[in-house]
């Protein structure tokens, strides 16, 4: 094998009038690692599918893709199968759904070896060796299990084992760490690095997380609205991003504390409509440095050594974000407290006993591995999951452990914001109907009063009133989470209980939602409990932190 493991030259993909990828050139050196970063909807997954030649037939594809020196487009089906079987490995974003639920793990793993012409016995032996190498504690037991019996982390290792059954020239990982806690992320990336160096496999790592990509890749490409806006060595690109989009992405990751550093920089606006991309640079509508020449004509690629930037004005420094609200100190009054709470799920005590106090204008972070009972704690406070033991207090008076026994004012005072706004907003209703109901029901307003309250609540979460008559499905992810927060605010709560409120969102959208939560806390004096697996988010938002590590 000679030359790069993957070479993409001038790749454009269109679906009818929609331009999904535009003139993308990218390569992954043999044995090297390249990261591909960008917001959701910018074309990352389309690019990955193009590398597998797995795009649907209606896609119009232009450009060249070579894997291990072999051009993809002239290959017939048999040659393509051979290439996919031996040279390219792919691990999907959702590893559980990538497994066949009707077959045992062992059978599915063995298939990967059979493809390479090995016998069942050899396959089984190598499966066990590979799983042990991937630090699976009881590989024999895992081989007998069905996909629904294993955890997400185990499923991901099974996916990796399938990928490394061969000695692939190229491994494509699509968002491998989404939804994993930091420990799991680190160990997963370590395992990949170990296997890669052993087998000389090159890596294309697709992620929305610039920092995670920076840790495991030697080159990074940044994709925006289907164009590769910047590509270069990881260290140089991270130390000094040249494209305004890259530098905005790097800056909107939460770090430090909002109390000391003020709000996070955000990228205003959203991705352009792929059917009508703006002329010239596609980032122009959201770029604070855009000049007239950015809006016209093709862009010259500015090249500094092997660092390519598609921008007329590279090397711009981003201004500091507008100074935030004056840092306010938490107030003294305890709004919600729990004493010696034992969280119980399915008849088993999974966390606690623990005690917590939440004051007005204060944020308490709850961290812990996945499955440690973070979300269950939040559900216990909401009264959805009555605790095994312990007492709750709301503003000095005892609070029933079961929501059915709570009074309306108590229900109104404690409001949740869940992780996934798609599930928290009724897709059959308009935003108006969604927001009116808590105003009528919990705040006890008349129809006319409730209608008048809509506007101030929308202002509070910075939503455009024009969206009131839209359905949730037609909103962006960030707008949906704002509607979900508005629903929580409508009843006039004193406490917000947020369960991973930004995990389902892009980094730039996350920054805006985190800023909103800071504002609600500092300006409106809300008490916020935040469950998160992201230490950056907790550090940014929280005054105190409790860590849940199973029963103590």
């Amino acid at each position, binding site marked *: 094998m000679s030359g790069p493991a993957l070479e993409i030259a001038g790749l454009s993909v269109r679906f009818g009038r929609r331009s999904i990828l535009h003139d993308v050139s990218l390569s992954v050196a043999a044995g090297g690692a390249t990261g591909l970063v960008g917001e959701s909807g910018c074309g990352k997954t389309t690019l990955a599918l193009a590398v597998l030649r797995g795009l649907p037939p209606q896609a119009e594809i232009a450009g060249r893709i070579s894997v291990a020196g072999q051009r993809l487009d002239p290959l017939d089906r048999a040659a393509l199968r051979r290439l996919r079987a031996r040279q390219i490995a792919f691990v999907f974003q959702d590893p559980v759904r990538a497994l066949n639920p009707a077959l045992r793990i062992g059978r599915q793993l063995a298939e990967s070896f059979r493809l390479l012409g090995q016998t069942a016995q050899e396959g089984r032996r190598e499966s066990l060796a590979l799983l042990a190498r991937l630090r699976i504690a009881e590989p024999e037991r895992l081989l007998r299990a069905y996909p629904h019996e294993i955890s997400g982390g185990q499923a991901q290792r099974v996916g990796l084992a399938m990928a490394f059954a061969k000695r692939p020239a190229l491994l494509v990982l699509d968002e491998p760490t989404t939804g994993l806690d930091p420990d799991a992320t680190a160990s997963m990336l370590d395992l990949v690095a170990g296997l890669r160096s052993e087998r000389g496999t090159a890596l294309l790592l697709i992620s929305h997380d610039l920092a995670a990509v920076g840790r495991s890749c030697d080159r990074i490409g940044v994709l925006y609205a289907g164009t590769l806006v910047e590509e270069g060595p990881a260290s140089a690109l991270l130390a000094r991003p040249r494209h305004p989009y890259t530098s905005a992405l790097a800056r909107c990751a939460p770090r430090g504390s909002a109390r000391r550093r003020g709000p996070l920089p955000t990228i205003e606006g959203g991705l352009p409509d792929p059917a009508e991309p703006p002329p010239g640079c596609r980032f122009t509508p959201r770029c604070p440095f855009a000049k007239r020449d950015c809006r016209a004509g093709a862009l010259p690629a500015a090249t500094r050594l092997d660092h390519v930037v598609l921008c007329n004005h590279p090397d711009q420094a981003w201004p500091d974000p507008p100074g935030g609200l004056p840092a306010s100190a938490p107030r003294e009054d305890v709004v919600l407290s729990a004493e010696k709470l034992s969280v119980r799920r399915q008849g088993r005590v999974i966390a606690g006993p623990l005690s917590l106090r939440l004051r007005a204008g204060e944020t308490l972070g709850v961290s812990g591995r996945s499955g440690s009972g973070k979300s269950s704690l939040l559900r216990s406070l909401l009264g*959805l999951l009555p605790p095994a033991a312990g007492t709750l207090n709301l503003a000095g008076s005892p609070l029933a452990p079961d*929501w059915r026994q709570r009074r309306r004012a108590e229900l109104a005072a404690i409001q949740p914001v869940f992780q*996934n706004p798609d599930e928290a907003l009724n897709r059959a209703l308009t935003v108006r109907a969604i927001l009116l109901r808590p105003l009528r029901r919990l705040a006890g307003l008349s129809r006319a009063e409730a209608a008048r309250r809509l506007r101030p609540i929308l202002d509070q979460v910075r939503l455009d009133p024009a969206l009131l008559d839209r359905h949730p499905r037609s909103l962006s992810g960030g707008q949906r989470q704002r509607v979900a927060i508005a629903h929580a605010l409508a009843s006039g709560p004193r406490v917000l209980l947020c369960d991973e409120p930004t995990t389902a969102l892009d980094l730039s959208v996350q920054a805006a939602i985190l800023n909103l939560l800071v504002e609600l806390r500092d300006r409106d004096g809300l008490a916020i409990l935040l469950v998160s697996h992201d230490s950056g988010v907790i550090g940014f938002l929280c005054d105190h932190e409790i860590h849940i590590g199973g029963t103590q």
Partner: protein
Amino acid sequence: MRWRPGPGLGLVLFWLAAALLAPAFLPWTRLDLHRVLAPPSLAHWCGTDQLGRDVLARTLAGARPIFETAPAATLIALLLGGSAGTIAGYRGGMADAAIGRLIDALLALPLIVLALFALTALGPSQPALVAVIGLAFAPLIARTVRAAVLAERRLDYVTLAQLRGEGSLYILAREILPNIAPAILVEATVRLGYAVFTAASLGFLGFGLSPPSPDWGLTISETYGLMAGGAWWPATFPALATASLVIGVHLAAERWRAQGRP
């Protein structure tokens, strides 16, 4: 996406029109013993039957009893099965277990056997036919509705509604129903197709209407013996009519489902 009618809806509307216009065909359905079993001709496009009645007119008029039974039976199935499935899916626990076993028990009995028992006990009549088919189809609809309600109940918007102190009836009617209504309506349309077929089958077995009704099932059972003697037309045209209406309803339901909305 805008909904466009397809061939299925055309077939259904054709037979609906025939059912509405049935009295207009009466003059051709009189007995005429001089023209018994005349093969299809220009005067009688589909021939005449053993009593000299025009087969085309009787086949068209036969749409009426079907349209009087199948939709009503489907509606009963929808109401019975819909409520049982909703309670099972939303309440869960004991209610779900009890309703689930009842559904299993009803589905374990072959539909025709169940219907024959009930119609023997009640005596064949149109209301009895409607009730029996409705009851027989209710468990299938209950299953679909239960699964749909169960999937919705797990979503956070239902939790949020509960935490607003909403009653179960409000949550079911105003929050959940709008999301599952399309699936239920499609299921009901599919059931309508089967109801046509079941009504015709029971008519054929003699548990539907009595002669001289032009009911398709009944007519086929009266005349299929004549096929051996070469008179194929009196049984074939009602059979084709039944098939075309069943297929029409299914095509319409499939198109509806594929387009994702009513």
